[in-house]
């Protein structure tokens, strides 16, 4: 069921009063809010079954055990980066259509009505309108889904560069 414009605005205004999660599980969940792709964490390839199988497979090339281990880690690391790249590309930050399309000017009477219940000053209404206008500008600047996924995947270029360089170094070492 679609909620009304007034209800959506009221929800957003109430959310501004929130002081964050209180329960342990809530805090633990919100601690992961800023997690984007996980590529900054150090991976532990050596203890995985896949790693050992890959080392055995590469050993067929007649390379030393040390080189095989390096190539296997490089290959798994590169796959990790490319999987994150795919996930980022396919799941860009969603467009907040409500925020993008709302008319801040047209919402002024609703702000006034909502704030009058708590005995606020006219300045508070203007502040709230300015706040929403700022959020709207930010939302519009991000563009549509294609612009968003381009911006997000562009941030992974350095991980890709490092990943392929590591793999290439491992394969080409003497």
């Amino acid at each position, binding site marked *: 069921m679609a909620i009304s414009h007034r209800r959506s605005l009221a929800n957003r205004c109430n959310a501004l009063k929130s002081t964050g999660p209180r329960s342990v599980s809530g805090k633990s969940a919100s601690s992961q809010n800023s997690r984007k792709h996980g590529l900054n964490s150090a991976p532990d390839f050596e203890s995985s079954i896949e790693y050992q199988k890959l080392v055995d497979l590469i050993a067929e090339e007649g390379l030393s055990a040390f080189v095989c281990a390096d190539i296997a880690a490089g290959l798994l690391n590169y796959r990790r980066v490319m*999987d994150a790249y795919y996930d980022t590309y396919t799941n860009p930050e969603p467009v907040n259509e409500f925020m993008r399309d709302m008319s801040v000017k047209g919402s002024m009477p609703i702000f006034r009505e909502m704030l009058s219940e708590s005995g606020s000053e006219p300045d508070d209404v203007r502040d709230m309108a300015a706040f929403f206008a700022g959020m709207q500008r930010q939302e519009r600047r991000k563009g549509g889904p294609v*612009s968003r996924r381009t911006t997000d995947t562009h941030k992974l270029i350095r991980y890709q560069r490092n990943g392929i*360089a590591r793999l290439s170094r491992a394969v080409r070492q003497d």
Partner: protein
Amino acid sequence: MLYNIHFCAYVDVAMPVEDKSKSLLPFLSSPKLLPNESEAEFQSGLQSLLSELDNPSPLAVALVSQLNESLWWIRRHTVDKELLLHEAMARLLSKAGSYSETYDNRKVSEALERYLDGRADKDEAEWIDEILAESKLTLSDLRVRAFKDAARHIKMVDDLIHRQHQTMRHLQRSIDSIDYKSRLIKRMDLELAALESKQSVKGVLSLGDKPS
């Protein structure tokens, strides 16, 4: 989550190239395709690259799979460049004329997409023409303006394509390197075998030369 790789059976060196790639695919290049992409096309590209390998060892096949993926990403990003332009065109149109009040970007965007593909019905085409006339723009003017607006994102896509080219260069060098290494190892094995056989012949001759 990201590190979801499945390994398959041992790959026999004497296996045909097609079978080799199939047995390696699940673990290194389980193709992650978008809903509108054809897996058959992806596989045929991979097979044509694999058929060019002189020595299709497991590592070479794995690297070629990554190379094919890079080619696939270049294709996706090239399509994105056009989509970025369409997105910017829709944004400009939705701001034009009487539409500045409602800013119904999605409706304009969908209609424009169909209009540019030639799939728009008569009403939709008329509506787009009307908005263009209202904003005193032709389609090519709109495209030029949109290009200016989307320049920052188009530059980003160019960077992404450039990165894929660099990745391909790295992979190509790696494939060349393992090909050279395996040839070197084979050559050394042959030379060693030749030396051993020479030694054994010498040994037989020297034993035969001994006076009884």
